[in-house]
């Protein structure tokens, strides 16, 4: 079953600079906010290629060289007052540099890119399932949905679980049990699905989590839309680097994704997804 999905919100042609207005920390995460007066309002689940306008390169291993792909966390305002927010975690030379940026500095962006989430089927209960920095696209989706949502989020520890404040009403699981349930967010998902009612699942997180979400939903014939990531150089179909195996063969995640229907994914999809080259 493939959900009906609009083609995409198209991106302005070329890289543009956002002036950052805020830098906020949520435990292990940094949220950067910046005005994007020349950009369109993105669909939830779409992403941007980000880099700093200055000093991009010269970090660990003399990297980064390529921009990094990030789902938009949230938008504010519209038109010339449009603001974009991104959720970052420093895990490599690119994200380390991005996390250093502060209000007043410039962020170079290309986007919005890719295809986002499709609307839930009427009458279905909406479950948002996120892991780690992958909670980002679920926040904008929760903002935009006019239905209530059940939010299940998984984190490594309390330091990371501070990110749960970015969504409302989140039920949290942590690997070390320091916050919320001691266990996996996918255990919470199984309990929720088994509680009954027709549900639709939207998920984003590390590939092993998404693989379990896919399997858990498939066993129960629950539709799932999964936002994936893969190492990509460009984000607009030019490099052919971000392919993942799917029911349609190898597909470019930046063009056909990053949101895929669970039904077109397999464990092979997740063995490849997330194999970023960079960090």
């Amino acid at each position, binding site marked *: 079953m493939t959900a009906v999905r609009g083609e995409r919100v198209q991106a*302005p042609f070329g890289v543009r600079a956002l002036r950052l207005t805020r830098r906020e920390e949520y435990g292990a995460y940094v949220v950067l906010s910046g005005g994007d007066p020349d950009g369109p309002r993105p669909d939830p689940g779409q992403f941007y290629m980000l880099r700093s306008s200055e000093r991009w390169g010269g970090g660990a291993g003399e*990297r980064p060289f390529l921009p990094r792909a990030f789902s938009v966390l949230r938008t504010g305002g519209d038109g010339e007052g449009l603001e974009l927010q991104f959720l970052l975690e420093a895990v490599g030379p690119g994200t380390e540099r991005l996390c250093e940026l502060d209000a007043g500095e410039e962020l170079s962006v290309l986007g919005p890119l890719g295809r986002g989430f499709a609307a839930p089927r009427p009458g279905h209960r909406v479950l948002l399932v996120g892991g780690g920095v992958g909670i980002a696209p679920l926040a904008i989706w929760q903002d935009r949905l006019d239905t209530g949502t059940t939010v299940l989020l998984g984190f490594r520890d309390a330091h990371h679980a501070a990110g749960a404040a970015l969504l409302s009403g989140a039920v949290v699981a942590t690997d070390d049990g320091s916050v919320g349930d001691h266990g996996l967010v996918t255990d919470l998902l199984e309990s929720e699905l088994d509680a009954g009612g027709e549900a639709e699942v939207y998920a984003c997180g590390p590939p092993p989590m998404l693989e379990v979400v896919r399997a858990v939903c498939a066993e129960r014939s629950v539709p799932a839309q999964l936002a994936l990531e893969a190492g990509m150089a460009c984000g607009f*179909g030019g490099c052919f*680097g971000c392919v993942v195996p799917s029911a349609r063969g190898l597909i470019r995640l930046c063009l056909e994704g990053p949101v895929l229907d669970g039904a077109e994914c397999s464990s092979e999809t997740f063995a490849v997804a997330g194999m970023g080259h960079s960090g």
Partner: protein
Amino acid sequence: MNPSFCGLGLAHPVINASGTFDAIAAHRVFGDALYEHFPFAAFVSKTVTVEPRQGNPPPRLWELPAGLMNSIGLPNKGLEGYLASDLPVLAELPVPLIVNVMGFTREQVATLVGAFAAREEVAALELNVSCPNVETGLIMGADPDEVSRLMNVVRPLTEKPLIVKLTPNATDPAAVAHAAQEAGADAVSLINTIRGMALRPGTDQPWLGGGTGGVSGPAVRAIALAQLVAVRGAVGIDIVAMGGVASGTDALEFLHAGAGLVAVGTENFRDPSAGSRVSAELDRLASRTPFSGAG
């Protein structure tokens, strides 16, 4: 600047390197703005082979200091698929179309050249000779005699400009370029990516699904310049130079060294409008310091 490259009458001397820009995908992403601000003076399409190819298994990319290594494996729809679905769209681009083709035998290259010779949408053909001839085991573009034999087969098939894309993984690219010229090539283009490798961290296994990959980006620019100068000394035909071009200064250097056109490759990944920026910077530099050592 109004380069007369192969008689194509291009608006400026900046084109794209094959396989670094998918105009059809980019149109989906950026809409008609792509056509209104098309960044290249001619568009070189991704390599077409006779049969469809899925390409190499992922992972396909590895970031390097000042560059990128890729192992994409030339995914494409094959000749039939290209003619049916890609060519009609690419023919609508606001610039001349150069089709890049590759075969694993001379007969396959001949099939491709013959098919495109009849298509008026195609302004010129670029021959990707960076693959092995499966009949001889030799990399076609690494050996002057192989290139001569290939050109002897395909040259009679078309009057369209034929551009031979040289491989940098050859002992003597200048000798290969000379052989191409003597066998009737209208131009040569260089450099293709340089073979490289990365290991999966902490293991002795290759990171890239294809084992080895091709290195590109600013890291290879000095190598490209040296090969360009060597090739310029060996041939009188037009040259398309590429390899790490990211600015007008880089492009001007290649033009000074004897190129007629400059191609932007990896920089397109960092900014899809890089070609327009390089062209505009080149214009400014050229008007300030015509051929006198810019900057």
